[in-house]
């Protein structure tokens, strides 16, 4: 059974235009899935629906086979601007979700410190948010989600507002974290290179209406860097597809294969 299933999801904009049109996706446990597409393809809307912040007009979202009922710490969301609380210190921000869950103070402290350590910000635990750089803030935002030990982490263009150098550092850090972590991730980005650098699988969506256009398995060896040749090559394939846009035959082929074909991975063979 897959970790996350999106079944025939459709959503309309207030005017009646389709933001999402019959989107179906399956995400395996521990998979790092990227959602890529041009503006207006509905990838952020899709993420919000999975997070429970928005409701679909048709279809449903299942986590471990159970339909979701609303937002919750089992599907933690990392926002583009971090959405950290400026009235709390770094550590208090990370502890926030644990407080909501009623975790005891000493345990909260412990867990928050450990996660801050893993993102390399342990010594900043008492700093105010405004004292951190953009990259540091996003790491705190990530820590805030990680500490909840969610089944799924959703990330909405978390690195888009950062400079290129910071982003490159974060790509390596994330791949490092995920080597031991293996939480299921759904990551939205408009940056195709970023998608190939981080993702196990890349779903390309097309715009107006938002649909799944094509799915790419990324089997490049890790750790990957944004300027690796393999990464660049695959990114180009995807970009070309994106520019060409959907073709009818292509679409139907992808739609049927998505829900049926089991994904064979190198690990499965041993």
């Amino acid at each position: 059974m897959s970790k996350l299933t999106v079944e025939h999801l459709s959503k309309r904009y207030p005017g009646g235009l389709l933001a999402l049109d019959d989107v179906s996706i399956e995400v395996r446990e521990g998979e790092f899935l990227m959602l890529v597409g041009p503006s207006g393809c509905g990838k952020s809307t899709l993420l919000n629906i999975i997070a429970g912040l928005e409701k679909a007009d048709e279809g449903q979202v299942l986590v471990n086979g159970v339909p979701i009922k609303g937002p919750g710490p089992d599907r933690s969301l990392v926002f583009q601007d971090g959405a950290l609380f400026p009235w709390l210190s770094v550590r208090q921000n990370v502890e926030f979700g644990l407080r909501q869950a009623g975790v005891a103070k000493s345990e909260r402290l412990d867990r928050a410190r450990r996660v801050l350590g893993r993102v390399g910000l342990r010594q900043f635990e008492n700093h105010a948010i405004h004292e951190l750089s953009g990259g540091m803030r996003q790491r705190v935002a990530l820590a805030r989600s990680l500490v909840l030990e969610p089944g799924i982490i959703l990330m909405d263009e978390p690195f888009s507002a950062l400079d290129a150098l910071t982003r490159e550092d974060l790509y390596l850090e994330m791949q490092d974290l995920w080597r031991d972590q293996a939480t299921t991730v759904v990551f939205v980005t408009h940056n195709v290179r970023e998608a190939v650098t981080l993702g196990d699988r890349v779903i390309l969506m097309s715009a107006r209406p938002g649909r799944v256009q094509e799915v790419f398995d990324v089997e490049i060896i890790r750790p990957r860097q944004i300027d690796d040749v393999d990464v660049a090559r695959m990114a180009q394939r995807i970009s070309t597809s994106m520019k060409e846009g959907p073709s009818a035959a292509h679409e139907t082929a992808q739609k049927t294969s998505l829900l049926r074909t089991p994904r064979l991975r190198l690990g499965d063979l041993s």
Partner: protein
Amino acid sequence: MGGTLVHLFSDGTLLDATAVSLRRVLAGYFISLAIGVPLGILLARQQWAEDTLGSLVAGFQSLPSICWLPLALLWFGLNDRAILFVVVMGSLVSITTSVRDGVMNLPPTYVRAARTMGTRGLRMYTEVLLPASLPAILTGAKLGWSYAWRALMSGELLFVSLGLGHLLMMGRDLADMSQVLSVMIVIIALGLLTDSIIFGSLERHLRRTWGLGTA
């Protein structure tokens, strides 16, 4: 005039009057805060509240606080409750409006982030909306304080006995310029004191945590 100031001080008149005025304004002010802050948050977050009470609040805003005095005197008589009512009505609206506007201007991601972390119901108000709107609440509090003080002074000047306003008026009745000026100086001093010590330190604290005003 310095002589009058010292004289009024030493025979306790000034201190008594200050105590009376402060007692009234603080009581009214804190009542306004206690009502205005939750009300402002409610108006910002609940459409039904905005639809029903919103226009009422907007209406009251255009009524100068002194206009409440005749009503208060008729309702409560010539006593402290009347002046309390005027002080509350004077500052309540400005506090409510500032808080409401502050909460409405909060980035929506705060609430969304909190929801994804499992925050629900009353906790959203106490642990997210309230702390997030502290800068707006402080602005409202400062505004409310000056309105409260103004309402008090007009009340004391016109009808109510005791207090600094009354002392001021007495100075006029006695044609005692130095008394008038002395009371004015005290009022100014009180204002500067609250501004720099109380509001000033609160603002500095907020600025440190929030990083407002830093480049």
